[in-house]
């Protein structure tokens, strides 16, 4: 899906836990998430923390969209 959307010329960032899979399927901009069932918020942590993590990683994804890259790139997250 990512490839087809990018092929259409739309800038896309894939947020995925399994970065090796995202790479293999051809995503160019990638931001890691924390797990498969809950990519952006661990339910065992307080709501507040989940929000912080989600807000941070979506922010990294937005910055990735605004960053020129030369090759497949995994953007680093802090939390």
């Amino acid at each position, binding site marked *: 899906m990512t490839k087809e*959307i990018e092929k259409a010329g*739309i800038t896309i960032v894939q947020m995925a836990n*399994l970065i090796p899979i995202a790479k293999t399927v051809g995503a*160019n901009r990638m931001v890691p*998430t924390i797990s498969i069932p*809950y990519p952006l918020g*661990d339910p065992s942590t307080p709501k507040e923390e989940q*929000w912080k993590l989600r807000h941070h*990683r979506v922010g990294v994804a937005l910055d990735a*969209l605004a960053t020129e890259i030369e090759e497949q790139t995994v953007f680093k997250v802090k939390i």
Partner: protein
Amino acid sequence: MKKAILYLNQFFGQIGGEELADHAPEIREGLVGPALELSKQLSGVAEVTHTIICGDNFMGSNQEEAIKTILGFLEGKEFDIFFAGPAFRAGRYGSACGNICKAVKEKFNVPVITSMNDENPGVEMFKKEMYIFEGGASAAAMRKDVMAMAQFGKKILTGEELLSAKEEGYYPRGERHQIWLNPPVSASDRGVDMLIKKLKGEAYTTELPIPKSDLVPIAPAIKDLSKATVAIATSGGIVPVGNPDRIQSASATKWGKYDVSEIDDLVKGEFMTIHAGFDPAAANADSDVIVPLDALRAYEKAGKIGKVHQYFYSTVGTGTTQGEAARMGREIAAELLADGVDAVILTST
């Protein structure tokens, strides 16, 4: 008796050499050049009823017109199978065989078969879309190449079991299916034998050759995020409770788009996941963990992005074939383009 039609270029169609490569398409009843051999090899099962001849340059520079004309010739003709070539190592001829076979298959839904040498650029261009038999470098291989096409054509027409690309002799089309080994050799024996060979440095053949990855060109960075419309798409199966589009929870062939223009947050009881590949508890309790609408809204309010797109797009990634995923991707991309979306965050699970 089944009926076959053969496509040839000007040279093998006995019109002439390079100087006549602009020859416009024509169709002749009966057999010209290699059609004689093909018809002979097909005997008992099928006969070649017509030969189509077209100059390589004509096909190369007026491709659309050439194909249209030839499809016009075929309209109303009864035929069960279509052949082109063999094209040997001739690049333009190979490309012509590929183009016409593709068009005939699409329009008339009959089997199409051609033959090319492995150095013919037509192989790379068309091998995924049709049976291209591995042919010789020059016309010296004519008989052999025609025979290979004919033998396989007969198998198709009589409904005989079709073997793998390697066994039949055509270029693999990228379709992998399971078969039972005959004689049966167990995976444990194959694995241990392969390991022993690998340890000894002897040759072995992997049963899963790693395909070369094919990347798409990197889309340019968004120049000014604060003016951009950003959409969310997901393969994590987030849908409104009740799954109005009845998206399948595995091997999905459907996708949905859901209006969130009035919503800032996906709350429990309104949205859920239908993905069968993971424990749904977290996503059902708060779908923002997969479709981070709340976070994106916050960036919209803060002015980091221009706008959150009216809809988010959702399907299920587990067990979904690449073909289906690509089709859904194209369909979603078309909508995004039409709606003027600049950028997408795609979350996968």
